[in-house]
């Protein structure tokens, strides 16, 4: 993988929790990626940004319980717009059974629960982009 990975990362909807998403954004930057941080955005805006930025990966942060409502919307809208290769990662406070459903029928590539090591996130994002190439 010689080219830089581009990640679009956002706080999902009106979620105000910021520390997690800042940490992840910073780690990805340290890992040599271009990280476009959007702040708070709804699915339509996130997908629009993914198009304009030609993102490899979309990262969503959700700690306020909106993951089932808005997370799958992002996946669906990406497909609708023809961005079939863009992988969606979601992190936050997610009940285990929700996480399974998100990774299963809802098509989120990976769901990260609290205490996931940062290196895991970096490695799995890199891997997913390498596989798509």
């Amino acid at each position, binding site marked *: 993988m010689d080219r830089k990975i581009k990640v679009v990362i956002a706080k999902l909807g009106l979620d105000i929790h910021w520390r997690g998403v800042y940490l992840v954004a910073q780690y990805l930057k340290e890992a040599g*990626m*271009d990280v476009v941080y959007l702040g708070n955005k709804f699915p339509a805006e996130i997908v629009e940004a993914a198009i304009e930025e*030609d993102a490899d990966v979309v990262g969503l942060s959700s700690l306020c319980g909106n993951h089932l409502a808005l997370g799958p919307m992002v996946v669906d809208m990406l497909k609708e717009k023809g961005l079939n290769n863009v992988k969606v990662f979601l992190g936050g406070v997610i009940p285990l059974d929700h996480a399974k459903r998100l990774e299963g029928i809802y098509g989120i590539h990976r769901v990260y629960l609290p205490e996931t090591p940062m290196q895991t996130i970096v490695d799995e994002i890199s891997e997913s982009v390498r596989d798509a190439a």
Partner: protein
Amino acid sequence: MQSIDQLIEGSLKGEKLSTSRLISLVERGNKHAPYVLEKIFPHSGEAYYIGVTGPPGAGKSTAVDRLIARLCKNNFSVGVIAVDPSSPFTGGALLGDRVRMHVKHDKMDVFIRSMGSDRVMGGLSRTTKEASRILDASGKQVIIVETVGVGQSELDIAEATDTVIVILTPESGDSIQIMKAGLMEIADIFVVNKADRPGAKDISLSIQGMLDRSLRKRDWTPPIFLTTASLNKGIDELYEGIWSHSRYLQQDSMLEKRRRTQFKLELRNRIESEFSHILWQDIIEEKNIDNLVQEIWARKIDPQNAARRIMGELIEELPGWLQRGG
């Protein structure tokens, strides 16, 4: 995967996804990049280019956001290239300009692209000009280029745009800072943003004084606008200011002269970078450099004369190089 020609055709018709892919190809120095530029370039040149620069945290992105809205209100389509710094150590970048931007894509014709500066020191990235031309060719009528947060001497923006806006704040320094060369000399328009804070009047007076004392012959005196971009104050005046500078450039084909000068500079820079690429890839051998460093370290020769010696040897060898095709 679409073919390059399909992407080019799509982009010229204004398809976002194709445009976005093309920018990536060029930004990454893909092997198709020269072909893309060759096809796109004849379709560019219609748009008006606005540059926005200033120190970090001055409110460049917020001002750009408000300008986008103002331009769209008058039915302009807008392309934005927002550059943020890349790490010189990891190459990574945190591109945060979109945080300040709240475009309603269903109502506005806008394309925003973030770019890492990629170890270039002039405030733009290596391919910012190319990316803005792709947006231009895709039909955007106004292109806004936002630089990284700059200090005093990152002036590339002046070679890439028609109207340069330098955004400062009341905290940007005293009269001495304002008098310094560099950034303050490339402005076509000054903005003192965050003008609701104390000191806005003082700094605008300092700028005015600096301009009054300038001996540079100019027909255009940069206006100074006080704005509070976050509250959308002063944006209408700034908007009008941009177009009055644009109208000024229409006289005596000044816009044409400005752009011709820019092409000349760009061409020179490209020749230099092509040349230095060849120089370091194919001509100068690392071990020769290391040997010279050894001599420099032993104080047998200074770096300037060492470079002259190498260049002298090269020039003797150059005809041979050219005959062999580099």
